[in-house]
């Protein structure tokens, strides 16, 4: 199925879903829990050496210095 076809179908789905909804005037619910101010204290740093190794291994491109490699910025070319 082409991207276009999927877009078309998505629009249909969207219309049908919003049709069922109708109108309502209420505040928006973003969260299931009503907590506020869930914070943590600034403690002693943790160092995850094993994670670093795995993360570098799991990345498509890295260089010998341990940098992840992304594209070069177009505006500096």
């Amino acid at each position, binding site marked *: 199925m082409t991207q276009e076809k999927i877009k078309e179908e998505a629009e249909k789905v969207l219309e049908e879903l919003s049709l069922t909804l109708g109108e309502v005037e209420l505040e928006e619910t*973003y*969260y299931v*829990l009503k*907590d*506020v*101010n*869930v*914070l*943590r*204290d*600034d*403690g*002693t*740093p*943790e*160092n*995850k050496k094993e*994670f*670093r190794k795995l*993360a*570098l291994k799991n990345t498509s491109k890295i*260089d010998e*210095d*341990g*940098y*992840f*490699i*992304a*594209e*070069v*910025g177009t*505006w*500096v070319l």
Partner: protein
Amino acid sequence: MKITIGLEIHEQIATNTKLFCNCSTSYREVKPNSNICEICTGMPGAKPMPPNRKAIDAAIEIALMFNCEIIQEPVYIQRKHYSYPDLPSGYQRTSLPIAKNGNLLGIGIWEVHFEEDPGKYDPVTGRVDYNRSGVPLVEIVTAPQLHSPEEARNFLRELTKVLQYTGKTREEGGTMRVDTNISLEGGARVEIKNINSVRGAYKALLFEITRQKNLMTHGRSVKRETRAFIESQMITRAMRVKEEAEDYRYIPDPDLPPVAITNEKIEYIKNILPEAPHLKEKRFIVEYKIKADDAKIIASELELANAFEKVAMVIPAQQAASWIRDEVRRILEYNGISFKNSGIEPDYIIELLNMMNSGKITVRTAKKVMELLPELRKSPRIIVEENSWVKISDENYVEAACEDALKENPGAVKDYLSGKREALNFIVGRVMSKTRGRADPARVLEILRKKVEGVMK
């Protein structure tokens, strides 16, 4: 031509751990990608930890320094979606304003919020380092009320001072990042990113004004766009054309409950808030009747200002001010250190000035001791004693030294007698070096004059 400039200033908040994870915030002195974890690299499935309380408190304190009104409704931490190599999750977590409607030097502060720093991306090599990713930032947004690069520079300098006063931003400096928008009358608004210093902001704005004026004089229009400041060349370059505002599709982060700042928290922070530098400066002029120039320099660093007030309780205020402005500042600049890290205690300054004022040491000795303080870090009284720098008050000893100096420098005596009065100063210098600076130069001059003129009679 009317110029309108607004600034968005990002500064890193000093914490041990990052905003949403327990990785260390040090990223300069470590290997690339060493202080990272699944959270700050946005690994699949990673959720933020609860936000770092210290970072949020710091942002509140900074907002209060600008007399902002603190928002007391729940503040959502939002996801700002955009695709960029330094952004591991494809969105940046950034809070809605925690405060609004402040001001500094008469320039409006629109809002203050906190957010996470992205990683470090080098567009030239494509290298990405996530050590910085997740470091807490405070962002301060001004009203577009600045009208020249000079004004922007002044404002940023003052703002830097205020941030340093709070002690809540990173001490090592050089972590400020500025986005600025600038429009010339009749042109579109241009945003400039990638500015890393006050000087950079000034240079970028200068360049941009010239560029935009040039376009206009050639009858071409200024496009609404985002440009990057290229520091190595002091120019700006188009990043992407901004026909309409980019849609960041903000949503409250479902993994982060909102922050609600309580009245108690605001009151608590207000009580520990330092006086703003520009207010302190004004107070010093009125309260201590010191010169405006001195007040400005003294108020440039909180610890220095505090030291001044302590010294001025014992020592005449203007003397304390002049000494700090001239001597202390000279030593700080020479060593490239802040007062806080200089090892100079206010008590040391008091002790030193007391010894000088009571005639126990000479001005020259006092200056020498001052220079040694950052290195020796001990009481001036002890330094003076250990080096036997107490002023020589034994008249016979000084007279003998004068006698010797006159004998050794007959030429200078002749010169003086033939009308070159400054020749005597040379001999004073000889006496001072014979006595290793411990003689009172005024007294030495007196003795020498008496002796030479006695010969003449």
